[in-house]
């Protein structure tokens, strides 16, 4: 939360956008993408802009600097920053403001830093070029900020190049760079979206800290309501370029007024019914002491053993580098393991894909993270779904067609509407449903879901998860659900496997794993997940400061 000296009173109005309209260009046509939105921001206040993709939040955030991305233009309304009307201001006037009084922190720090210059040179550039400070002064401040943001080797890290620094560190360095002229307003454009959960929480804490210290106003753009709950005083919910709801953060989180907001808040709060049953029958999939590596490199998976039973979901959680995707590759036979055995339905599977029987291949299916790259853009839907039907089940002609239609109905898409379309014509959620249908077409026993909701908007992802749950209840499918998102895990898992650097650190029934005492990494993961609790971040900071982590 931003600070205000603790007395709750905010400063005067810093930024006022009235009736803001922005148009976007596609194929030589201009369409309105932001339809008359009002934004008011006071000094020292943190405003959260949340929405799904296409809501226009990033476009609005950038408009506060009087800037429009290539392919966009500000077509109406007024943008007044500290008394200056930006829509009519000259380029020179806007340039004076940018960097010095309004700063921007981009989503991808790796892309936003110039690879040819050192970090500290890029930091000092802004104040020196704006004539605000001299180089020596700016450098000293840089070091101080790096220290405050808890970067390792703060005196020396500035002299590195962007590619020599990790993602989370770069994001903090970019925050420092934004602070270099002590601006009145910083626009944070999804700064932690690309980071691991444990890194994310540190960056959020760091941002919170400096913003508070300098009483900077901030616009915090994100799609994650839990994150914004940590950071913002006020929240604006956007959808398709319209304002849905606006209000004080705590009030909105406790009692949202609009249905859309309520749905956003309740994401992943559903819980699957616990499976009641007697002694577990023979597992559908059993992996024993599997170790694997890519070529001669050190082991990526070390001594992993997992069992998946019928109609149950095993969630494999870990951050990047944990080996969870490698595990999927080993199970499917794309990467033969160095050691260990894999049993499917009681029989041992050959480690390499090419030596497995067609029936073995049929009974295990996989769904991928990015529906865009998982569907061949040059094949129609009926070809995509029809091929496994032909290939595995030998159905052709009318029977094949009927089965395709059945599958489309099962994934809740109208058959006549979709059967002849190309993937490019579908939305992300629809494409992912087609991927599910393709997996179902083989009539499998086990489906490996590799981060299947990570690339989707929150509400769309919610629907997909619920669909997967319904399918599991109906068809008694087993799922191996690979994800980094603990909220998802809590919603749909029966058992949880926690992985870190190729090893399993903890596994067992969901409730067991989630309740303490746990392995310290599990504790770290669980505590890093931003909940809808506005005070969480502050409390966490206290706790972590007491026991610092590198």
């Amino acid at each position, binding site marked *: 939360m931003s600070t205000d000296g603790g007395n709750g009173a905010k400063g005067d109005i810093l930024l006022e956008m009235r009736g803001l309209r922005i148009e976007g260009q596609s194929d030589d046509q201009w369409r309105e993408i932001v339809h008359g939105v009002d934004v008011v921001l006071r000094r020292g206040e943190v405003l959260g802009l949340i929405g799904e993709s296409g809501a226009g939040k990033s476009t609005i955030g950038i408009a506060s600097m009087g800037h429009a991305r290539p392919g966009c233009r500000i077509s109406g309304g007024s943008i007044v920053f500290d008394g200056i009307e930006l829509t009519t201001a000259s380029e020179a006037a806007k340039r004076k403001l940018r960097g010095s009084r309004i700063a921007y922190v981009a989503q991808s720090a790796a892309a936003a830093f110039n690879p040819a210059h050192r970090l500290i040179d890029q930091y000092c550039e802004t104040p020196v070029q704006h004539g605000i400070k001299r180089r020596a002064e700016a450098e000293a401040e840089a070091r101080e900020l790096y220290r405050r943001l808890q970067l390792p080797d703060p005196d020396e890290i500035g002299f590195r190049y962007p590619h020599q620094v990790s993602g989370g560190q770069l994001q903090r360095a970019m925050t420092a760079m934004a602070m270099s002229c002590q601006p009145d307003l910083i626009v944070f454009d999804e700064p932690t979206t690309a980071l691991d959960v444990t890194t994310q929480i540190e960056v959020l804490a760091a941002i919170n800290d400096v913003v508070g210290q300098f009483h900077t106003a901030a616009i915090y753009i994100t799609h994650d309501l839990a994150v914004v709950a940590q950071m913002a005083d006020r929240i604006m919910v956007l959808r398709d370029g319209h304002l849905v709801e606006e209000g004080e953060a705590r009030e909105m989180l406790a009692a949202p007024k609009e249905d859309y907001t309520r749905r956003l808040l309740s994401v992943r709060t559903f819980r699957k019914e616990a499976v009641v049953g007697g002694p577990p029958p023979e597992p559908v999939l059993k992996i024993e002491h599997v170790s694997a590596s890519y070529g001669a490199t050190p082991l990526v998976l070390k001594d992993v053993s997992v069992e998946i039973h019928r109609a149950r979901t095993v969630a494999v959680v870990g951050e990047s580098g944990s080996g969870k995707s490698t595990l999927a590759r080993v199970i499917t*036979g794309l990467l033969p393991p160095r050691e260990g055995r894999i049993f499917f339905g009681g029989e041992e599977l050959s480690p390499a894909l090419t030596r497995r029987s067609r029936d073995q291949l049929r009974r295990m299916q996989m769904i991928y993270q990015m529906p865009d*790259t998982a569907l061949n853009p040059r094949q129609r839907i009926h070809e995509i779904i029809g091929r496994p039907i032909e290939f595995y089940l030998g159905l052709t002609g009318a029977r094949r067609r009927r089965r395709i239609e059945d599958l489309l109905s099962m994934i809740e898409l109208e058959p006549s509407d979709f059967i002849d379309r190309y993937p490019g014509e579908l939305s992300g959620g629809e494409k992912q449903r087609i991927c599910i249908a393709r997996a179902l077409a083989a009539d499998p026993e086990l489906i490996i879901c590799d981060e299947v909701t990570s690339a989707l908007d929150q509400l769309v992802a919610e629907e997909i998860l619920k669909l997967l749950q319904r399918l599991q209840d109906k068809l008694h499918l087993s799922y191996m659900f690979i994800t980094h998102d603990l909220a998802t895990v809590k919603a749909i898992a029966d058992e949880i496997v926690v992985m870190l650097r190729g090893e399993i650190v903890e596994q067992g029934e969901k409730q067991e794993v989630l309740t303490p005492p746990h392995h310290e990494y599990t504790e770290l993961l669980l505590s890093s997940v931003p909940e809808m609790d506005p005070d969480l971040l502050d409390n966490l900071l206290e706790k972590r400061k007491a026991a610092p982590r590198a």
Partner: protein
Amino acid sequence: MGFFKFLKKSPWSARFGMLVIVFYVFLAVFAPILTPYGESQVVGAEFEPWGEHFVLGTDNLGRDMLTRLIYGARNTIGIAFVTTCLAFSVGALGGFIASTLGGWVDQILARLVDVMMAIPALIFALMILTIVGTSVPALILVIGFLDSTRVFRLARAVSMNVVVMDYVEVARLRGEGLWWVMRREVLPNTMAPLVAEFGLRFCFVFLTLSALSFLGIGVQPPTADWGSMVRDNATLITFGDITPLLPAGSIALLTVGINFVVDWFLHLTSGLRDEH
């Protein structure tokens, strides 16, 4: 329907190019009907000026220039086309196999191509032609194989982008065979850049062939060929006569036309205007 929309949105340069191509193909196909005289028929004195009997005059041996030009279209374009097809089939096949199989097959093929490309094509061609002599089959084979290296590189690069896509992995996991994957998953997604490359390769082959003929090491007389026609009539330039520029200009015009069309095609399919 899609094709006419494509035509309507094209800029004047692309339309000009398409017109040129159609015109040339027409000339090449109907050459015997269109020409007033025989291909190598001596019909008059040497270097006759442009006039009634010989619309574009006669060449250094007294043959009709117009006839030779039109037959030149047929010969040069014909040989270039066959050569490009050869280069394309070999190169594209190699590129696809290299990317789909990966591993040591890919490494060996790629290294082989690297070495072949380390020698400039013209030099290599000259060298080999010294030894095997300059017959049309030799020309086709030599230039065809040398040029296939560039097609290989492009096909490999483009299909590598496709091969890492998840939908190709889906097909593999299903147990589909190599040919099926290449044909049904990879190929349809690489058509656009390949088609463009065909056009560019044709231009390159065409220019190389003409250059070799110009140097006297390509198509041999008495076959009408634009490159050698430039060579034969070069002395006219010193008299201010533009006749040798006619075959040279014909070469240029076709290449320009194809380049315009390919440039537009690339712009449409990917928004890129990259130079390789």
